[in-house]
């Protein structure tokens, strides 16, 4: 599995598109001839993968938005999966 460092900067991979689907009331990730339906947590993380914020900053943003702490492990875990699935790139 990919080891992700807190200072790396994730972005949605070329050819992938994150989008809110009104008809189904969910966020989806679209790619050539396919689609992944995202649960709320996954969509919150991916919405922040903008090629600007580092992993560490994304964690901070989420902790602030949800008034909680200790999300680091979950976010790193999800981003590792997302990277393996080629959904995101890491700089």
């Amino acid at each position, binding site marked *: 599995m990919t080891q992700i460092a807190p200072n790396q900067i994730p972005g949605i991979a070329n050819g992938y598109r994150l989008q809110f*689907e009104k008809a189904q009331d969910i966020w989806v990730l679209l790619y050539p*001839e396919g*689609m992944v339906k995202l649960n709320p947590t996954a969509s919150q993380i991916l919405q922040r993968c903008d090629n600007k914020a580092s992993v560490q900053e994304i964690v901070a943003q989420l902790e602030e938005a949800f008034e909680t702490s200790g999300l680091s492990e979950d976010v790193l875990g999800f981003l590792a*999966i997302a990277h393996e699935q080629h959904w995101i790139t890491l700089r």
Partner: protein
Amino acid sequence: MSSTMLEHGLKHDPSATRPGPPLWLLAELTYRCPLHCAFCFNPVDFATHEAELDTQGWIETLRQARALGSVQCGFSGGEPMLRDDLEILVAEAHSLGYYTNLLTTGVGLTEKRAEALKEAGLDHIQLSFQDSTREMNDFLSNTRTFDLKNKVAALIKKHDWPMVLNCVIHRMNIDHVDKIIEMALELGAETLELANTQYYSWAVVNRDHLLPSRAQLEKAERVTNEYRERYGDRLQIVFVIPDYYENRPKKCMNGWGNVFLTITPDGTALPCHTARMLPGADFPNVAEHSIEHIWYDSEGFNRYRGKGWMKEPCRSCPESDDDLGGCRCQAFLLAGDPAVADPVCDKSPDRGVVDQAIEKAQLTPALPLKDQPLIFRDPVESRRLSADKTVP
């Protein structure tokens, strides 16, 4: 968080009372095509369906399907580049929020049109390796084909589209998967689909020529795996075996009327692109009915939805949720009844038909079959075969 929290793919809970939306819209813009593939998936009688929806008809279809929840849109054919309003339709689909896919042979994809398609918001091109000549044996050495693919591949790269190559595999080219993979690597593809011919339409007419032997298939899979080991990080290779060599059928279209909606050139709506061959009432047309009515209420789309239509052995089969009894078109083609188990299933009483075809494939010597010419898809053959009622 774990990956189990992510629902993958185009799934829909089959036990839900109301079907989910037609997530996948396949717009077959035209049956016209400059090529003559012997495994063409267009209906054998395509030449008797020449009418095509006009631009406004397609735009209306795109809008209605999107409002219902369609999100993936594929433009295919025939060769969709032959529609000169393709750019308009892509732009409309894009602005509606579809992820837009173009399935093309690359014939007619010039620099100018590539630019216009990028501008229109096209997300992805799937380039297929179909040969542009009738000399199937020359398929791989044919420089004209290679030059064309080279040119189109460069355009795809230049415009930053993900490059997905698709090559239909059969008895005549399966021994050369190594060369096909090398070609894909050379073109800089990210994904290569080595899709064995599935036996519908023209491929049924030409089955003896196309179905590979077991030995051929095993060798091709071995070679593919070797390349995967060596180049896995550069090129993702998808290898689809012909379902005749499986003992369970595929869950065709992910279920009838479940996620896929095909609109044929003349506006006929189908649960899958080959369903028009099935006996029974005609499928509805977008010129006469709304997509909402077609998807949720039409007889055609409810005919084999869910499991209520099943006969034995499917009806009491513990695996019926896994494959929903397989493919209705294959059941009709091989067993004469679209409501029986797909004969690929080894629980089907008709499995013998599939075994016979496989057996023949082991015995048939290398090409060509002298007494039985390969039939290339073209309008003349199409009219001849549609007049000949022995061909489905």
